[in-house]
């Protein structure tokens, strides 16, 4: 009885897994077809005429005449720079809020940061656009990097960790003459590497995958991110060039899928910590 139950559940799990994976497999398969075969409506998972042309053209900029390599670089640059900023300033702020009791306005600041977690993004979208417009930052890397540094999620996540960090270690270091910067840099940061990795993955994926903001704050082809670029291609004149579009989506997905699979464990941890406790 038990055994057959498990068997049925495993079959069900596999069937659902097929449904989940099918669009991704089809994406890869289509990216290896020429446009004619991709539009033929035939269901060959292995292309009849397998071609790498979509990728070759993509990487040398001939594909749809758009600089895909540049787009990917823009996404990676803004993702990495944005993540580095968030990790640095969030960990510093979380340390101050959690451990430095003489921080002026500590409670007020913390309450404000937490309250901001509940604010829908649309509330800041248009005024932030106008703000960046005023600074002359539209179509620059500033616009692709800076806005993500205002979010309070990382401060909140690290605050919870630093608050539960044992006092004794910190006090022992203080008696040995270490000041706040030493305690922050050589005790708190090394001990919170797993949380920082988690936050880093979360932040990187968030920035890399964002597409509405980059779509509106970039105006020239060479400043697009890959996600904004793809959405423009899909709504533009290349709507049905599925072979080419799919080569682009494969290229766009590879970095982030790699990060996801490598960091999956800590990503799952971040999700479960993101607001329940």
């Amino acid at each position, binding site marked *: 009885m038990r055994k057959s139950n498990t068997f049925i559940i495993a079959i069900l799990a596999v069937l659902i897994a097929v449904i989940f994976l099918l669009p991704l497999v089809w994406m890869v398969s289509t990216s290896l077809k020429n446009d004619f075969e*991709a539009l033929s409506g*035939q269901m060959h998972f292995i292309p009849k005429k397998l071609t790498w042309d979509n990728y070759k053209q993509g990487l040398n900029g001939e594909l749809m005449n758009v600089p895909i390599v540049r787009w990917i670089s823009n996404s990676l640059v803004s993702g990495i720079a944005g993540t580095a900023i968030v990790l640095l300033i969030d960990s510093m702020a979380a340390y101050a809020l959690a451990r430095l009791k003489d*921080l002026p306005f500590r409670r007020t*600041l913390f309450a*404000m940061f937490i309250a901001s977690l509940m604010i829908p993004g649309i*509330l800041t979208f248009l*005024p932030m656009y106008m703000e960046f417009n005023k600074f002359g930052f539209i179509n620059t890397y500033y616009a692709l990097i800076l806005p993500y540094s205002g979010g309070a999620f990382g401060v909140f996540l690290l605050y919870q960790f630093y608050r539960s960090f044992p006092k004794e270690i910190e006090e022992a270091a203080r008696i040995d003459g270490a000041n706040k910067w030493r305690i922050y840099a050589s005790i708190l940061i090394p001990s919170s590497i797993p949380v920082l990795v988690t936050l880093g993955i979360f932040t990187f994926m968030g920035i890399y*995958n964002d597409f509405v903001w980059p779509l509106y704050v970039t105006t020239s082809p060479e400043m697009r991110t890959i996600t904004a670029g793809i959405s423009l291609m899909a709504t533009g004149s290349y709507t049905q060039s*599925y072979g080419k579009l799919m080569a682009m989506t494969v290229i766009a997905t590879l970095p*982030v899928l790699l990060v996801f699979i490598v960091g999956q464990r800590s990503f799952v941890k971040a999700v479960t910590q993101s607001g329940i406790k």
Partner: protein
Amino acid sequence: MRTSWQSRLSSSLFALPYTICFALFMLFPIGYGVYISMHDFELLSDEHKFVGLSNYIEIFKVGSYLNTEFFHGLWHTIQFVLYSVPLLLLVGLGLALLVNRLPARLRGLFRTVYFMPFAISASVMAVIWLMMFDTNAGFINSLLQKIEIAPVPWLTDLPWAWLSLVSTTIWWTVGFNMVIFINALNEVPEDYYEAASIDGANAWQKFKGITLPSIRPVMLFVLITSTIASFNIFAQPFLLTRGGPGDSTKVLLMNVLDEAFKGKAIGSASAMAITMAIFIMLISLVQYRLANAGKEQQDA
């Protein structure tokens, strides 16, 4: 305990960089948004006349252009929320229960597979499904053709358009809810189930009597986060149906951004955005209250 001003200064320096970013990219935009919404703010003009609350009044004046834009959009968004949220909850919980009943060494694998689409960008997700749903050459219609079912206009006719938007959303994000549910299920103490087994409870009784009450706070969390996420729907209709057929899937965010960037009327668009944000926050508050009231009743 008083500390020296030097100590307070150095403590402040730690909090300063983030606080500046918070002020520039969170606090200021919120205030600036309110300011913009009270002005006749044209995207391309430098002169902004103060108009007080008239943008907001326009939104609520029956029959006005803004009123139609806002409430038609809101109605389409609400439709999406009503279709998607129950499924995001049920499918998420279902997948979590399924994964948890698998043999331990298979759990990680299946969890990863169901969670994987979540790693993909909204625009990539939409483009993949654009191809899957294509009426003439799409995978799904080709599959249907094999069993001699006529092509379905997945993205260009009702009710199919909604069905497509909801199913792509579930494919894309349900893994997130599943992961939260798996975590919640694992925290239910094993001895509760053992005690119930000794009392002769069957699987359904155990689920109703132990599992559901134990994961109640998590259900509420997922309900609220899913509702907020669904209210913010944009990418799917923007890229998949482009608001069609007609404007029947043109959701509120699309109207807000059109008003701002196509209509160049940032002032009235900001008023729409603020009204929408207040609406979303009210809904989450009501959900929270209702769920808590229900809990007190249950406890009493």
